[in-house]
């Protein structure tokens, strides 16, 4: 009762006074000025402190140090690098290594995650149980611990190169990593890459033509089988035309390590193993929930329209399931990319690891951390932009 009369009194006095603070717009502007001012003030204060501190410790600011010689070795790199190169080149090596790990990790995690997600829905009790045990174990143990385990396993349990496991001819598994044979350089490989690119473009043109023709005449075109034929056939034809080279560069034991072939270092192998096994657990859950989210009535409706089972899967179920699966999966891809920064803990030279060394050698903390953040922010924001575009494209058009 008292509250009511109080508030009534409050309103009446407010209307009488009509203070300019009562105006909602004025208050909004004032509040924003206050918040904005406080944030700017805080930033100014921090920057000012930093400048004073840097001056006192006589640390030069700026990115001039990137020109100086890095003089530290990097164990593996996609581009030519030597300790005589400058810090910027070292940064590029780290960047490429991060992108390389992320790309391979994403592909493998998607494959493994899909298999396990489908397995969780299997009608075979044993398969479903096994898959759910996998998911529970992998998701409830920190990735860092898993990485340490795999790294210790590879370096501590696998045999010395001299007693390397040799499961397939030319494949050696030892505590120095995994060595596999690779094809010897030949112009055919470049030509095949070009052929794949040409085939992709051709299939894209073909499918848009087939769609237009179906819209106009109603005649379907077997895009899938013809497309697959072109994608596989064209590179094969090119391979044959170049004389089908079969020479392999085999790894061989020389001294204490393997030469030739391609070698996956223990650090790289452990990082990929850890990232893929961990992320696959999360992707599996996404795939599973995407599949059960599409109601059974959808496939029954498709079948009653006279579509074949393959068509129901391709035209009815997958588009709806993917709409649910893809957005959270991109989130997982982003997580995998960010998690690849744990490489620093097991000594794989990724971006964070290289910049950390740079930081320790030069003392340019602000610049190094800023570079780390800038790279990851760029990756995150580009994926976010892509996701916005994709979501807008697939958004349900409701009647």
């Amino acid at each position: 009762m008292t509250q009511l009369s109080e508030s009534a009194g409050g309103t009446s006095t407010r209307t009488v006074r009509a203070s300019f603070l009562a105006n909602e717009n004025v208050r909004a502007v004032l509040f924003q000025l206050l918040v904005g001012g406080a944030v700017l003030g805080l930033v100014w204060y921090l920057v000012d402190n930093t400048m004073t501190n840097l001056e006192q410790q006589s640390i030069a600011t700026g990115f001039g140090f990137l020109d100086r010689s890095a003089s530290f070795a990097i164990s593996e790199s996609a581009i030519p690098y030597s300790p005589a190169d400058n810090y910027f080149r070292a940064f590029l090596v780290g960047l490429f290594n991060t992108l390389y790990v992320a790309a391979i990790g994403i592909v493998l995690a998607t494959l493994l995650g899909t298999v396990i997600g489908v397995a969780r829905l299997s009608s075979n009790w044993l398969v479903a149980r096994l898959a759910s045990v996998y998911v529970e174990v992998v998701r409830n143990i920190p990735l860092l611990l898993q990485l340490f385990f795999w790294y210790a396993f590879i370096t501590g349990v696998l045999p010395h190169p001299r007693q390397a496991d040799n499961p397939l001819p030319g494949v050696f598994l030892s505590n120095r990593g995994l060595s596999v044979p690779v094809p010897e350089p030949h112009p055919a490989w470049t030509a095949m890459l070009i052929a794949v690119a040409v085939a992709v473009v051709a299939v894209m043109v073909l499918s848009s033509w087939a769609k237009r023709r179906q819209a106009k005449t109603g005649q379907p075109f077997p895009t899938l089988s013809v497309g697959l034929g072109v994608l596989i056939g064209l590179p094969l034809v090119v391979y044959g035309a170049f004389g089908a080279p079969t020479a392999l560069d085999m790894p061989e034991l020389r001294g204490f390590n393997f030469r030739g072939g391609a070698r996956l270092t223990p650090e790289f192998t452990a990082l990929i193993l850890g990232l893929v096994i961990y992320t696959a657990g999360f992707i599996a859950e996404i795939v599973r929930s995407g599949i059960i989210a599409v109601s059974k009535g959808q496939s029954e409706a498709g079948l009653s329209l006279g579509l074949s089972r393959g068509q129901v899967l391709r035209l009815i179920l997958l588009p709806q399931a993917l709409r649910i699966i893809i957005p959270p999966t991109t989130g997982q891809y982003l997580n995998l990319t960010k998690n690849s920064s744990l490489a620093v803990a097991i000594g794989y030279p990724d971006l964070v690891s290289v910049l950390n060394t740079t930081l320790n050698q030069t003392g340019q903390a602000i610049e190094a951390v800023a570079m780390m953040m800038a790279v990851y922010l760029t990756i995150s924001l580009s994926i976010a932009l892509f996701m916005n575009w994709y979501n807008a494209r697939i958004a349900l058009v409701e009647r």
Partner: protein
Amino acid sequence: MTAETRDDPRPSPDFAARVAGSLAWVRNNLFNTWYNALFTLIIAWFFLNVLPPLFDWMVTNSVWQTDDPRVCRDAAGACWAFIHEKYRFILFGTYPYDEQWRPLLMVMITIALLAASCDKRTWRFIVPMWVAGLTVSGVLLWGGVFGLTYVENLRWGGLPITLLLSVVGLAVAFPIAVLLALGRRSDLPVVRAICICYIEMIRGVPLITLLFMSSVMLPLFLPTGVTIDKLLRAQIAMIMFAAAYLAEVIRGGLQSLPRGQYEAADSLGLGYWRKMRLIILPQALAVVIPPIVNTFIAFFKDTSLVLIIGIFDIMTATKSALTDPHWRGFFREAYLFTGVIYFCFCFFMSKYSQWLEKEFSKGRRH
């Protein structure tokens, strides 16, 4: 079923029915198609090959108690003696050995509070409950009062650090996250821009970069002469990180409320803060409790990253235990031990969050 059936040599009809039932179950769940039969056989073969050696390693050939690492190295099985030797170090780090009942009590209090927080009836006084719990924990760990000797936080380690980083991190991050979420949904462009920038920036970078920032850049940000403790610096980074992720979870709750709730509050003549405090937030926060538990699980696992800036949590303690030259190479036992600890915390929390979600959806349907 009566007791006499046991004396009867012939299987009772009940028993026969049960056998038939389980046979039918096996047929329907393990051998319903040819490929499922194949999978079942492959998995059975795999189990037959993997489980017996695993059991031998873990139990039959393992060494449970010895002071001599050589005994372990000669044995073909697991060296649980290593865990026996090191578990106090892994759990409590370099905390003075005779005083380790204090971190143990702190861990038990925290676990008890976590368990108590699972019960809806405690939610009304959850804030005073945790404030009291954390105060007692602080007194226990630091000491210096009530006749407890003072232990500086450089000597803290192991599980208490992991729990402290995650619980304090989440507790402090929560109010910040509420403000960030409200700010992001605000009509005021400046406030919204600031909140979006903060949230997206933190979420866009790996936690490691934030930890690096707090360990190498934070000292530069402060006025000359002012230093903050290493552990506190890590805690600040964890809070900044958790706030951004929680804010997004809470924003989801704010978005899930029907617009009618906002309009009803407006039409009652409530101002912004009273509208949020009395109408919107209570409903929005209730919706997001299960995802908040999930965020806490992820956060709990992520505290292990403080290893990289040299904070002595349970992960770092495990790694250091392995560097003892006498006991080198027992990484499987060590990581299994620590992994099981992490697993227990995360598994129960995730089961709880799933149960809660079901409870909530049950309530909403009526």
